[in-house]
């Protein structure tokens, strides 16, 4: 019995030493992060649908959207061990890129965009947002920890 308790104690001490060294290097599911991805996808789709009209009519809306996208990016960047999601947001909102950031820049430069082009771009941008929400949704949820 004494030896049994000794073995158990050794195992639990080893585990206690093992656990902190292996603290999760992945963030847990975060409702706010998920909401950012979903809400900003909806806002982006709505605004992109207007891109056949002159940009100046929607400039204020575009600026507000850009600020909200930046906010989502900064939130992702601020979470520990969240560099992957932060990189996703960075690519998505980059005005030099070719997703929502680049699309808004192109709309401003070209004034109007063709309906066919904006329809095709909406599909790509929607899928891009889905990669972010898909990753967030795949994270370990708090109730899995119980």
């Amino acid at each position, binding site marked *: 019995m004494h*030896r*049994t*308790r000794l*073995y*158990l104690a050794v*195992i*639990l001490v080893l*585990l206690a030493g*093992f*656990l902190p060294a*292996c603290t*999760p*290097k*992945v963030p847990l599911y975060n409702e706010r992060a998920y909401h950012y991805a979903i809400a900003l996808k909806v806002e982006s789709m709505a605004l992109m649908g207007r891109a056949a009209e002159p940009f100046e009519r929607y400039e204020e809306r575009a600026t507000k959207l850009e600020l909200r996208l930046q906010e989502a990016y900064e939130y992702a960047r601020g979470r520990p061990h969240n560099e*992957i*999601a932060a*990189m*996703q947001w960075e*690519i*998505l909102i980059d005005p030099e*890129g*070719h*997703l929502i950031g*680049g699309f808004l820049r*192109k709309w401003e430069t070209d004034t109007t965009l*063709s309906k*066919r*082009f904006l329809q*095709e*771009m909406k*599909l*790509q*941008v929607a*899928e*891009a947002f889905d*990669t*972010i929400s*898909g*990753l967030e949704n*795949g*994270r*370990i949820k708090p109730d*899995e*920890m119980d």
Partner: protein
Amino acid sequence: MSKFDTFIEDLRGEIKILAREAGKEMAGAALKDSRTFIRKAKKDLERWTRLLAKGDLTADEFEFLVEAKRDLAVMEALKQEGLSRIRVERFRRRLIDLVVSTAFRVFL
């Protein structure tokens, strides 16, 4: 057989099962997602090529869409990397639970 030997034997068997299940899960999910992405990308590129030939897209728009697809591919790859890390973390947690529960079952 001492209790410690029983513990090691039991644990070995359980870990094999856990590792096999986790391995299948990791390989299956990533492969399925990759195939879906490639299939969609191929369809999109074929459609854009047809639209370009018809004059429904300009060369500039076509190029922009192709670049968008490239950016999207990077985002998809990042998602897969992130999900892969999450699966490893889930496996680690299940392993710890397994060690603790086996220890309590054998020794108490």
